[in-house]
């Protein structure tokens, strides 16, 4: 029978998402989670101590009598070689893998996988999933690293900016990105196949492509602060900060990024992401189970005859 710690480890093998707080390197987060999961795995009670039989000779008085028989008595002593204090805990290291990484400045959904599911993680990211971000920007400033923590380079006025102008700029950017999407999908536009793919919404680049935004929307505008919602492929967080800077430039002003927050990473949404109080093994096991059941439900829905939206889930 498998030991209880191994059983707990098998339950932990799956994909789950956490909410990474801003200002923390993703590696620290990964190490913290690994430590917490190890605590949970090794907390299982150790198995009963093994015994071994040791034969002890009788005392020398028997031998001195000159008897030819050697009497040995059997004693059951504990075998300490497998005692947990001698061999250590069952698991001293587990492989926790990270999906698409978030830099120190950003916060949001970070997908992690344990053990065997790291293979599923690489499959997920090779299938080019899209991600949702919420970008908070501030007009009137320009810095060297496009975010408000950098060194200030320029200050501009922003009174002339209205919601209408901002939306027009965003629409223009979305248009150019859409064109890029079509060109990088490497599909001949004049074929029937291309039309069918476009209808289903599956027209997207398969191989390597530069970062492309598939959706861009203004959520909130109160000068100088504004919030954008972005859906993109193949991006980095620095690229998104640069997008904000370019939005500012297009509006004949400047803008910096005050916050990048990932709200969706492939099929993982912020709703089920675990906050740092819940980075423990029972919560993680529950999150894995929840994800698996939601996958099963969505698969059941998709395998209904006819309709196959096939948005971002290529994962079993």
């Amino acid at each position, binding site marked *: 029978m498998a030991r209880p710690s191994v059983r707990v480890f098998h339950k932990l093998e799956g994909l789950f998402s956490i*909410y990474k*707080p*801003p*200002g*923390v390197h993703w590696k620290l987060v990964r190490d913290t989670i690994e430590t917490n999961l190890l605590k949970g795995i090794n907390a299982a009670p150790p198995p009963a101590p093994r015994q*071994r039989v040791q034969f*002890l*000779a009788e005392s020398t008085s028997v*031998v001195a009598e000159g008897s*030819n028989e*050697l009497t040995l008595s059997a004693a059951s002593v504990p*075998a*300490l*070689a*497998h*005692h947990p*204090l*001698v*061999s*250590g*805990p069952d698991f001293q290291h587990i492989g926790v893998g990270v999906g698409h990484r978030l830099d120190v*400045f*950003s*916060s949001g959904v970070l997908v992690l996988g344990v053990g065997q599911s790291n293979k599923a993680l690489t499959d997920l990211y090779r299938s080019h999933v899209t991600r949702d971000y919420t970008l*908070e920007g501030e007009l009137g400033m320009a810095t060297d690293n496009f*975010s*408000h*923590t950098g060194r200030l380079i320029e*200050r501009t006025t922003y009174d002339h900016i209205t919601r209408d102008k901002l939306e027009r700029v965003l629409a223009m950017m979305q248009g150019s990105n859409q064109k890029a999407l079509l060109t990088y999908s490497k599909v001949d536009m004049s074929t029937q196949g291309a039309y069918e793919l476009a209808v289903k919404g599956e027209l997207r680049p398969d191989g390597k492509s530069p970062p492309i935004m598939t959706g861009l929307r203004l959520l909130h505008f109160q000068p100088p602060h504004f919030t954008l919602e972005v859906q993109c492929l193949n991006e980095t967080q620095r690229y998104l900060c640069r997008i904000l800077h370019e939005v500012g430039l297009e509006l004949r002003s400047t803008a910096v990024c*005050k*916050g*990048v*927050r990932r709200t969706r990473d492939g099929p993982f949404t*912020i709703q089920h*992401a675990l*906050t*740092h*109080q819940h980075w423990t093994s029972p919560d993680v096991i529950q999150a894995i189970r929840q994800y698996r059941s939601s996958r099963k439900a969505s698969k059941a829905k998709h395998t209904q005859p006819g309709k196959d939206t096939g948005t971002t889930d290529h994962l079993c």
Partner: protein
Amino acid sequence: MALTCIQHCQRCTSLLRSRSVGITTLQYSTDAQHWPAALWNSFIVPVLPSLLQRSPNPSQTRQRWNLGVRSYCESHAKVQPSQTKHRNTDELPGTDMVSYQNPVSHQLIDGGMLLKEWQTAFDLDDAPGHSALEEISHEEAVRMDIPAALPPVSISLKDYVNESETLGKLVQLGVQLWKLEQRPNVGSMLLRLDFQTDVTPRLVFLKQLGVEDSRLGYLISHNPFILTESLENLQARVAYLRSKKFSAESVASMVSRAPYLLNFSVKRMDNRLGFYQQQLGLSAQKTRDVVARLPRLLCGSLETVKENLKICKLEMGFRENELQHIVTVIPKVLTANKRKLTQIFDYIHNTMNIPHDLIVKFPQVLNAKYLRIKERHLFLQYLDKAQYDPAKPNYICLDKLVSLPDEAFCTEVASATLKDFELFQKTIVAQPRMTSFSERHFTHNSTQTFFRQNNMASRAPATTGRLLVSFRKWYYNAAGFNKIGLMRDDTIHEDSDVKEALRRLPEKVYNDRMFRLKRALDLSMKQAVLPKEQRTQYEEDVHYLEPYLKEVIRERKEVEEWSKK
């Protein structure tokens, strides 16, 4: 094979000479030369007679072995110089093996031995009786011991724990051998200890000191070298602590919480106690309390403590008495991580705007986790409840902010549910770094005043002399614009800079200014003044335009500088 046999013979003969009890039997099968070269932390078993409990026939077997050895010796012996009695030898390059130290103390190098010593070890006139190939009777065979196959070199104590009495008893005490074997040389050291002569007296000493049985395992796991420290030294150090008027219970608690304490010399402990008393300026009793609460202070390096003290005084601007109070409540501040401490102080003082005296009242905020403080403060700010001034209503105690668990915090302090708090946590984005913090200088006066005056009212006059204030008041009243209800910034001459600054004013302030100007124009037309109660007082006068004007002027200067290039 030759090497092992000779090693084996060497040990057994020397042991036979030193201890007449029992026979030492050794492993036969393993060959040390075939072990991999990179055996870090490998231990060689020091074979003690106590390991083995059976010994049927000493003399007969000894005779047999003597002759066997002699025959080997004659064919393989080489003259080798014997070396020092050093414990650690480096037989295989790059390994950490420890060879057995025996009373005769000759080292084995390349399997050779001093020929002389071999020859004196054996009586060459012994009757050449038995050889290794001789047939023995059934009873003798049954009585012969086959010892356990202990490897001579191993990377884990697992292989020896069943046979070694010391290791077995340590496991019963609760010592974590798996951690200790990872430290270099510790495993060999533990194997070499004899339970009765080495370990027991020290355990008895610790028990007499008052350390609880359950803590002995923890102590030895963290500091195995307490078992090799001489008893006189240990007693002298405890006597020193008692002489400094530490009570017996506090000494016991200090030793169990700081496992390395008794390994440090009296001189070093004395040096540290003197340093804390002198630097912090505390009384003897208070220093004792601080050290009893955090006995680690006597173990670690003083450099970190000195740096932390400097940071508290210079960067954070705490006064001497405030620092004393903080250290007596939270001694951990002295050994805290510098970066984390400054990060927390920066957030509390500059972002949450909590003055020094309030931090001194609740020093536990300096010990809390930065993320926790940040999240809770942002949540309270979102709910418009972030009010930490005790003078005003709806005051939130810093102690409650920091030390309550999440559930209690949400219900008591924030009047929200835990779910709301979690949802809010998922909306937090990065906060801007305070520019004031990064422009700090490490000179005494400027930073102290900078930090301490950060929170003072922006209207504070440059100097607070009473004479100057009264002069200013007189001048203000003499100027006369307050009689028609104007403020100082309403009267400023409108050049292009001022126009730009006015353009940047918030709407409300601008409207107020317009109203005041209109009223003043009306009054001047009527050649009237306001009644005394309605006139602007010196204290009410707000220089609302000043920050905007300063900004505009700075920008203009910057533009001029750029255009010069």
